[in-house]
């Protein structure tokens, strides 16, 4: 069985794109989610994922070629059954006894109604064209159906960034951010809490860990902070999910979005997927990878639109604490200030310790201050036991 890999639509307005480079060659085996090519559009160079599995048979388009959306770029052969010849006669033998088995002898049939994501045919087709992994999209149509509107909204939100943004693109992004933030401030009754957290244990642990680690394996505080938030979101699910249709829908997965400022006044918040289940080195390497790709403008549509909670930090700017704005339809955002040397009381004596201010902005429709305090406490306590992270 062969299938075709086509030039995807990587934005709602995209009509054509330039194939910059292939990441695969004939004979390579690819699976769902693999990056197979880089494509340049008017929005920048984007890593294109494939959503089929198989073996690359033939590359039909040379790097540098500018082709319309939908053009077949490569041919793939699908996964073949392991032993075709023996499978066929066996099937026939199975069918031969034509008598109807007595009801008691019938095997238990699986239930006809299985929990299955509801996706409209049009939404499925559009997601496929845009290269969006639909299994990660939350449906907002009646009955939680994923509709065209959901896909289109995602396509707008995840419009990829370029390394060299034009004035128009910056303007567009400001407009998108402006719209989301205005909606947030208009609709979400925010409440804000802040908690100072002594970072000395975490710092000592990091120093110790890094002293014996190779450069690539060294950890930065941000990995700890992100993991602590992911664990808190897992433990207190009322802060992790989406508020829609007048109700909060918690997410079973924890995808922590990292607000990353880009050159030219732009801001994106790609997610570390399932951060609560990842080790610190894994999170660190994803953070490095993200930072590199964000700067180069190589972001995957999926990771830009799936955050269930967001983390923002202005540590590098020397900001003590910050009161962030929730990114709708999420219900919480955590802010980290700079780690500053401050007077800190330990056992009745004042000493100097590294202190970080952790702040939380959360949706009062979903939680209240007490729950928020528990959430902050959870992060705080996690940072006091870094070895357990």
């Amino acid at each position, binding site marked *: 069985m062969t299938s075709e890999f086509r030039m995807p639509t990587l934005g709602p307005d995209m009509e054509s794109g330039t194939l910059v480079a292939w990441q695969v060659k004939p004979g390579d085996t690819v699976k769902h989610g693999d990056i197979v090519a880089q494509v340049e559009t008017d929005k920048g160079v984007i890593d294109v994922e494939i959503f089929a599995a198989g073996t690359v048979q033939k590359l039909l388009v040379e790097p540098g070629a500018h082709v319309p959306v939908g053009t077949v770029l490569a041919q793939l052969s699908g996964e073949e059954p392991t032993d075709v010849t023996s499978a066929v006669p066996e099937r026939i033998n199975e069918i031969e006894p034509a008598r109807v088995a007595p009801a008691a002898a019938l095997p238990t049939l699986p239930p006809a109604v299985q929990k299955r994501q509801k996706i409209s*045919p*049009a939404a499925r*087709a559009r997601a496929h064209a845009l290269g969006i992994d639909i299994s990660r999209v939350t449906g907002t*149509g009646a009955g939680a159906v994923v*509709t065209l*509107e959901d896909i289109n909204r995602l396509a707008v939100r995840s419009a990829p960034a370029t390394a060299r943004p034009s004035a128009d693109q910056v303007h567009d992004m400001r407009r998108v951010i402006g719209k989301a933030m205005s909606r947030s401030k208009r609709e979400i009754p925010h409440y804000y809490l802040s908690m100072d957290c002594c970072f000395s244990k975490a710092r000592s642990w990091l120093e110790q860990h890094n002293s014996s680690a190779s450069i690539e394996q060294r950890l930065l505080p941000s990995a700890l902070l992100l993991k602590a938030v992911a664990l808190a979101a897992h433990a207190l699910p009322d802060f992790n999910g989406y508020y829609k249709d007048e109700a909060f829908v918690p997410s079973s997965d924890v995808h922590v979005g990292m607000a990353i400022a880009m050159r030219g006044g732009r801001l994106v918040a790609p997610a570390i997927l399932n951060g609560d289940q990842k080790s610190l080195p894994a999170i660190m390497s994803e953070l490095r990878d993200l930072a590199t790709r964000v700067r180069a403008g190589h972001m995957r549509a999926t990771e830009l639109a799936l955050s269930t909670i967001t983390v923002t930090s202005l540590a590098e700017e020397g900001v003590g604490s910050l009161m962030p704005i929730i990114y709708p339809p999420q219900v919480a955002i955590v802010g980290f200030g700079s780690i500053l040397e401050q007077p800190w009381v330990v056992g009745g004596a004042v000493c100097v310790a590294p202190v970080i201010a952790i702040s939380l902005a959360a949706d009062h429709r979903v939680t209240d201050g007490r729950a928020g305090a528990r959430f902050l406490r959870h992060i705080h306590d996690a940072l006091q036991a870094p070895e357990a992270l």
Partner: protein
Amino acid sequence: MNAAEPLARRITYRDALRDALREALLRDPNVFLMGEDIGRYGGCFAVTKGLLEEFGEARIRDAPLSESAFVGAGIGAALGGMRPIVEIMTVNFSLLALDQILNTAATLCHMSGGQCSVPLVIRMATGAGRQVGAQHSHSLEGWYSHIPGLRIVTPATIDDAAGMLKAALAYRDPVIMFEHMNLYNMQGELTAPAANVDIERAIVRRAGRDVSLITYGASLFKCLSAAEQLAASGVEAEVIDLRTLRPLDQQTVTESVQRTHRAIVVDEGWRSVGIAAEISARLMEHVFYELDAPVQRVCSVEVPVPYAKHMEEAALPQVAHIISAVEAMLAHDK
């Protein structure tokens, strides 16, 4: 001043039909009318009023109360080279002529290897909403649309009432024209010359981007009214008048749903196994991958149409039902 100006006169749907009949009688000496009470009485719905005086008994023929007999006579006349236009008072009584229509009119061309065509036009009133009880309120266009060999047309507008008869007379096969009872008194302006009216294509009566309301006959106006009200809340419904139920113009419907990705069929017939079911099945076949929501049907409740006014209203598709269906289909978390 433009060329269309003389056409723009205000008439009723009934007048438009009568003018079309008159013109057909004047144009072709082989055309004659036949039916119950169409001569002296002027027609059950007064469509043929005055024609007996103008054209005489040979061409405006009052028939005995036997639908089977006079429809059969019409088929015979058509086979013999005449162009009969037979009026059956209402679709309710047409069941008495069903054998003639289904077994004779619809089959002869096929069974004679194309030697005997039956160029017969049958007009009949259809529909409910006038408190005439269960036996006189049927909408059976869907039944007739099931039959190969027939062409089923449903003029909803003044222009179509005026022009569809001429188009029907141009066919060599039997055409059944369904006129909804509630439309006869409708007033409007005649805007299209009869020569421009076809019975081939459905038509978009109102353009919209959010949902396609697919309908025909008197339900067209309920859909237009619903679309008007929906527009006030920012929802743009596209309204399609099918016009010809057999053969259906799939292209117009397909193109509309490709634009809107949502479809609701509005039909005064009973919900099950009707025109709405057929349209819905065709949408599955043709535009499944364009659909953003399951196709919905707004049809009559499956009971004999009640006599009591409030119950009759509750049983038939109403503007409010259409609006609710659209709103439910568009419901979305923001």
